[in-house]
């Protein structure tokens, strides 16, 4: 059943193959034999590739204050083939300020293929990196005496202020893995290692320029190849404008001194991070240039982990600030109404289970419960929600419904901030408890999650973002620290609204509770400030002294800023977190500090918490 008509199609296919090969041979013929330029340079000449490094983008704060810029530095390069035997080693060492043994070691290292896989005798190899202007000037005068040594202009980062080290990050030499991952990099190049320097590496780095020089058989440079037609100039990296407010950032870092903790401030209307402080911190200028590897090693060995950006990597129990999420969930699910009253006689007592509480009126409604931070109220809420079989069918379904609410508020998963290393925290679901308790659990077993204890873990960023969603009455934008990349539109991930599952009415009630908390509840201290602050304190229990937490926003209508303050082992929320937040609110709302606030900031700055060195 051969189809002879189809069989002829082999000639079409064979013809296509012949045609392709013919076209390619003609093309080869043109570029290899007809084009004069290539032929002239064919045998004896070689090309020398000179790389021009682009300047890395600068970084500004939201008000245009320069935070990170470039400073010239110089690399000394060597072409081994040209150095042979005619160099006064001693003079070279003097000019560069190195010892002879270091010189010998360095030369051996360069030739060692295990340490320097890209080695070639004929190309420039990095000999010494990042000499400053002064170090370099002595060498430049004598350079003509050292054939085979060249200069490569580079730049190092400089920082105008000692703040925001975790957000800014730093740059360092590329690792072999970086080179493997991206052809752009060559050994000795720099790459962002932390913070926005890492996250925005592609935008910041620009594009290297290349000059192709011709040299003759003796290695002498004869000029540029084809009059520089194929060269291309470096393209400078793009500048970044951060969303940080430098003054607020500086103040936040100042008040965290001597404490472990984190502060995050977000502009609810945009998701822009106004301040992100993590303590202990370090001066970004510490990690510059040649000192970097040593300094970095020292920091990474420090038991207090100053390199850790606790704002996005620290996992903390949110404590009572979490009660807002509970109120929103119960209200929207119809478990309670704003008028539902629960009793609380110094805690939640049920079948031998006891969750303590402090003295306040009883019974009380939701606004009062938020205001006084009543534990029992929220325990009852969770108890009724998880126990509602008629609505959910099983405790598992109820639990997962609860989890969906938490997730919709940006908890339990990475928010997607534009910084590397963000942690997702922990919001348990039904299968988590099925696994932990072998299916034998109910609302009472997990009751402590209703007050932000137990398994719940959040990052300070998530707590601040929770404040922003409440301020927005039910939605948030993914928090981000860069508000503008020069010449590029903002990533749409940061301009998309994420709605939570809770209703707007529920938000209004919770906001009333948070306002009441400021006026007459747990954060009374903020009541004297004129910006209509809404807040919620937290006192998170842990195996040491309680953590001091605050989450809030201001003003109540048209909110401009949402703040989370977390001070490890700071005691009651009102001890540290609330006064710190008060100073920050004043700074951001008025742009400066009144003398009394300045005094308060001073006091807080010098208060130290004694942390033992155990279990660090």
């Amino acid at each position, binding site marked *: 059943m051969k*189809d002879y008509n*189809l*069989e002829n*199609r*082999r000639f*079409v*296919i*064979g013809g*296509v*193959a*012949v045609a*392709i*090969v013919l*076209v*390619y*041979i003609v*093309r*080869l*013929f043109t*570029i*290899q*034999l007809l*084009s004069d*330029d*290539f*032929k002239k*340079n*064919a*045998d004896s*000449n*070689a*090309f*020398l*590739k000179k790389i021009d490094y682009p300047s890395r983008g600068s970084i500004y704060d939201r008000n245009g204050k320069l935070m990170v810029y470039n400073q010239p530095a110089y690399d000394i390069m060597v072409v081994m*083939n040209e150095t042979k035997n005619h160099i006064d080693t001693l003079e070279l060492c003097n000019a560069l300020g190195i010892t002879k043994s270091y010189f010998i070691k360095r030369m051996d290292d360069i030739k060692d*293929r295990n340490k320097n896989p*890209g*080695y*070639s*005798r*004929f*190309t420039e190899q990095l000999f010494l990196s990042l000499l400053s202007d002064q170090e370099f000037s002595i060498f430049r005068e004598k350079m003509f005496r050292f054939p085979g040594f060249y200069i490569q202009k580079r730049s190092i980062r400089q920082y105008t202020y000692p703040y925001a080290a975790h957000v800014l990050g730093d740059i360092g030499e590329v690792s072999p893995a970086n080179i*493997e*991952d*991206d*052809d*752009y990099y060559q050994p000795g190049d720099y790459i962002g290692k932390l913070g926005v320097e890492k996250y925005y590496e*592609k935008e910041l780095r620009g*594009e290297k320029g*290349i000059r192709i020089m011709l040299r003759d058989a003796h290695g002498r440079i004869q000029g540029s190849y084809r009059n520089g037609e*194929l060269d*291309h100039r470096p393209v400078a990296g793009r500048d970044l404008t951060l969303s940080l407010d430098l003054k607020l950032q500086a103040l936040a870092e100042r008040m965290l001194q001597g404490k472990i903790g984190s502060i995050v401030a977000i502009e609810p209307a945009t998701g822009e991070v106004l301040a992100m402080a993590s303590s202990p911190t370090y001066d970004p200028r510490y990690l510059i240039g040649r000192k970097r590897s040593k300094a970095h090693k020292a920091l990474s060995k420090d038991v207090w982990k100053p390199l850790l950006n606790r704002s996005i990597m620290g996992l903390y129990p949110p404590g009572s600030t979490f009660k807002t999420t509970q109120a929103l969930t119960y209200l929207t699910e119809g478990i309670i109404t704003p008028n539902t009253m629960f009793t609380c006689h110094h805690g939640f007592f049920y079948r031998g289970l006891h969750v303590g509480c402090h003295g306040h009126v009883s019974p009380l409604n939701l606004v009062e419960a938020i205001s006084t931070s009543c534990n029992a109220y929220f325990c009852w809420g969770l108890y009724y929600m998880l126990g509602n079989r008629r609505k959910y069918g099983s405790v598992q379904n109820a639990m997962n419904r609860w989890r969906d609410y938490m997730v919709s508020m940006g908890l339990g998963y990475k928010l997607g901030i534009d910084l590397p290393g963000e942690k997702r925290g922990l919001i348990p679901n039904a299968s988590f408890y099925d696994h932990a308790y072998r299916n034998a659990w109910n609302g009472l077993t997990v009751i402590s999650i209703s007050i932000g204890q137990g398994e719940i873990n959040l990052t300070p960023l998530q707590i601040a973002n929770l404040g922003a969603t409440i301020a927005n009455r039910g939605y948030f934008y993914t928090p981000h620290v860069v508000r503008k990349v020069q010449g*590029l*539109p903002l*990533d*749409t991930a940061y301009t998309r609204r994420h709605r939570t599952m809770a209703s707007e009415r529920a938000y209004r009630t919770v906001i009333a509770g948070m306002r009441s908390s400021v006026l007459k509840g747990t954060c009374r201290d903020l009541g004297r400030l004129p910006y209509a602050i809404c807040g919620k304190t937290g006192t998170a229990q842990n195996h040491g002294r309680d953590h001091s937490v605050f989450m809030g926003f201001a003003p109540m209508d048209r909110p401009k800023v949402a703040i989370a303050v977390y001070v490890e082992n700071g005691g009651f929320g009102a001890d540290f977190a609330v006064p710190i937040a008060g100073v920050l609110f004043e700074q951001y709302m008025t742009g400066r500090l009144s003398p009394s606030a300045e005094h308060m900031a001073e006091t807080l700055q010098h208060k130290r918490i004694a942390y033992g060195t155990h279990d660090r």
Partner: protein
Amino acid sequence: MAPMTGKQHNIFRSLDWWTVAIYVALLAFGWVSVCGAGYTYGDTDILSLSTRSGMQIVWIATSLFLGLVILLLDDRFYDTFAYVIYALLLLLLFLTIFNPHQIKGSRSWLVFGPLRLQPAEFAKFATALAAAKLMGSYGFDIRRWKHFAMACTIILLPMLFIVAQRETGSALVYIAFFLMFYREGMPGSILFTGIAMVVYFVVGIKYEDTPLLHTPTSVGVSVVMLLIQVFTAAMVGIYSRDRRLMWYLLGATAGLTLAAWLFSAYVIPFDTVPLQFAVSIAVIVILLLRWLRTRITTYALISLFTIGSIAFFHSADYVLNKVLEPHQRVRINVLLGLEDDLNGAGYNVHQSEIAIGSGGLRGKGFLNGTQTKLKFVPEQDTDFIFCTVGEEEGFLGSATVLVLFLLLILRLIRLAERQPMSFGRIYGYGVLSIFLFHVFINVGMVLGLTPVIGIPLPFFSYGGSSLWGFTLLLFIFLRIDAGRNLTRMR
């Protein structure tokens, strides 16, 4: 049942030694090139296992062994287990999507200690086998839509999974099977339409922002409009055998466009695209009128092609510029080799042209290429390996390589045509289509003629996966071919 030794004897007598000879020649040439690409001055030990050239010897040796094993297996094995092999590799491809290990942004590499395997390379032979099995089955007719769709599904599944591994280049290779479909009876117009769409897209998008001299006309859009008209006229000539109308259309459209370009360039600058658009509408109207008058459906189908072409081009343009977000657009442009923004694809091509050009007639000799030594050319021992051939072996060497590939493909066509069973023929065409596609894209990209799509040059590019994959493809076919007489007796 013949005794074991007798059968083996038969196999090696009926084996096509010509193909084996070309295969070995290509392997040898390929190894020399990998040496050239990996070698740096002062590094004399090209046989050491720590170098790429040394490792390539290992891959070559294992490939030869693999080839031998395949020859010793029963040829009915592939026919019988075609679907099983296909299903297993599909599963592997699917699992690879979730591979946590990324290399250069692609998840397609499975890493086992020092060994890196790319399942996408092995899926080619499995897909060819499955397609051959399906299309060789009794009663299969690719001209029936249902059957055509089934054959397409076999090809699209692995493509889909490979795209999900972010290895789009390897996925595009599967398009080559349409050449085999064509041999098996797929209407030529489908192949032609497909090629036309690719041409519109690449030409149109690449030169969209290039103005014609100083006029507001966009070269890309204008040329695509002209191409659509020329293709339409050619189809009229070929399918409705109406030579007069063809010349009439060709003359009118090309003449008008040319006149418009000249008028726009030298008299009054204006955008010629709307005029060309109007001409296209006129062509469509003429075809439709002719259809209504003669009742020959071919005219209607051709006008449908014209309308479809215009619609496709404009919607592609619209989707690219309006619907997609900026970063997605950049990715597509980079894939097509239109944007050298990310890792400088345009720059790479330029460098590879310099390298090849500097080779001259005879080349600089083994290990003497300066361009490749000085690391000008990226991926020089994988995707851009042909540069090294061009630089070190010159025009003579690189033309020889191309001729060897051509001979291989022509030889495979001959072998495929002599198969008594359609299974063997279809598989053979699958194999040769894949080789042709790889050579076409890879060499074309190095020579700056086709978009930069990162796929290897068979038997040349460094790497075990691709070498094993190509050896499997080829030797399974050789095994099937060697058994052709036995099959006939069965």
